[in-house]
């Protein structure tokens, strides 16, 4: 998928400020509770016997072969040509089967109990950054074409969510 813009997360940069969470909530008007993107933290023992912390923002990875899609019993989750996985809330019955299938814990459940999750800011312009990228103060969330990443960075950024905007942006071209 050359040319596909991807969103990538840099664990070496994330400092756990949760700005992405709040930016996402404000951008998508999410209620208290569900977190389309969430920064998680983990204590790690270093080689010298002292402790340190690791942070990582987690959102929906928009997997190429998303396990939530076959898990959904009502066909409410769809993946478009741009690879963005979206949920149709009118078909969702809130059974949370998708959450059990998702290894990333991405599906969230709002006050009505229906599934909602990261849309990669699908309502924004295809070339515009997502809210989380825009408001990350340390550049831990960035988007770009995979070939723009150095191999070093690519190694650091295990988690790459495909924000396949190619289809959206080059569709007309």
């Amino acid at each position: 998928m050359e040319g596909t813009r991807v969103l990538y997360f840099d664990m070496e940069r994330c400092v756990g400020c949760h700005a992405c969470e709040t930016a996402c909530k404000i951008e998508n008007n999410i209620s208290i509770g569900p977190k389309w993107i969430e920064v998680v933290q983990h204590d790690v023992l270093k080689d010298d016997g002292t402790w340190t912390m690791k942070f990582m923002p987690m959102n929906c990875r928009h997997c190429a072969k998303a396990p939530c899609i076959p898990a959904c019993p009502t066909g409410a989750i769809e993946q478009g040509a741009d690879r963005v996985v979206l949920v149709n809330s009118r078909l969702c019955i809130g059974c949370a089967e998708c959450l059990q299938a998702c290894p990333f814990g991405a599906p969230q459940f709002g006050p009505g109990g229906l599934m909602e999750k990261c849309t990669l800011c699908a309502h924004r312009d295809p070339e515009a950054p997502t809210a989380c990228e825009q408001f990350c103060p340390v550049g831990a969330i960035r988007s770009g074409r995979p070939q723009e990443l150095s191999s070093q960075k690519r190694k650091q950024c295990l988690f790459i969510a495909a924000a396949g905007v190619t289809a959206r942006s080059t569709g007309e071209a």
Partner: protein
Amino acid sequence: MRPEKKERMLILGAGAAGLSAADAIRSVNPDSPVTIVSGEKGLPYARMALPYYISGKIPVKGIFTGMRRDFSGRKIEYIPGDPAVGLDTHRQKVLLRSGLALEYGKLLVATGSVPEYPDMLAGLDAPGICNLWTLKDALQIKRRIEHGGAIAVWGAGFVAFMAAKALAMHGRKVYLICRANRILRRVLDEGAAGLMEHALSEKGVVCLKDTNVEHIGVLKGGKKHIVLDGGRELAVDVLIVALGTRPNTGFLHETPLAGKKGLEVDEYLGTRIPGIYAAGDLALVRDCVTGERIAHALWSAAVREGRGAGLNMAGDRHQCDLSLLMNVIDLGGYGAVSVGHPLLANNTEVYQFADKAGKAYRRLVFQDRRLIGAIIVGRCTDTGFFPALIRGVPELTQARKQKILRFPWNIAPALLGL
């Protein structure tokens, strides 16, 4: 665009479609005025539950689907016993029989269907001859069969079957007068119908196939004398006529919406007049297997369409016109399910399975790599998977299909990716 706050949502009909629509409107729009008009008196009830009421399984209060406080608590106006008699699409008004004219912003026609009557026979107006359609009918039947007696059911469709079953379970002698060569011929094949007939006969129902009613008379003491076309004669206390239904669209005859088969709707359940929607038995929705426009007189379809229409009325854009045929009947634990079009015959692959004891039966019909219909008799634990599968969720891959055909008695593992 959300509708204006003051815009009245008028729902004609308090059946499954009408009430689902009201629920759906309220779920997204807690404020707009909603009015439900019912042609029948009293509280709304589930027509489906009437056979269970006459069989004695539930008390009469168990059939009601909406209580007054449900309506008042959610600020829904409920007008019972006042059927619509006219519609003025220009002034956006509905005229009720009492003379009341209701203005609307959005209108949902969900007046359901009415039973078909055979037009030829004399004597149908005698007491003890009725449909099983309204609560009034049910109360009448219940009263007449209280102290035993024989009952004839004319027709062999879903309602007839449910009536016969209900009364037989109640310990009554029941004759099922079936014009075709099998019962439930629209939804079951011979194999399945045979099993169900057998099960019925074990409960004391006599199925008279390839038979029609020639003459009806009334004997002394009120018993009905029924002459059948084969020359056989029956004397019964009650005759239930259940020969099918037609859409209840009479009051629309002067509007552009009038149509004998039902109301044409688009994929958002809107009719050709903006602001007017239709759902339930009279809405001509697309069959999700054949794609043809047809009115499915089903509870499940009415609930689904009612909800969809309600959401669209409240300002959503929710595509919801694909309807799936599904019938489920149960004879005291022995059930039959028919989903989709299991009897379709062109370019289909048909697989039939029967267990050794001759108790369970399955018919799976595929067309162009799709499952388009299924009949399941006995062993009904996995039936919930069929409607979704026919709708294409999950997709029927070749591997899945092979798994289903290898283990046809429980398709759940094949669908859950095991």
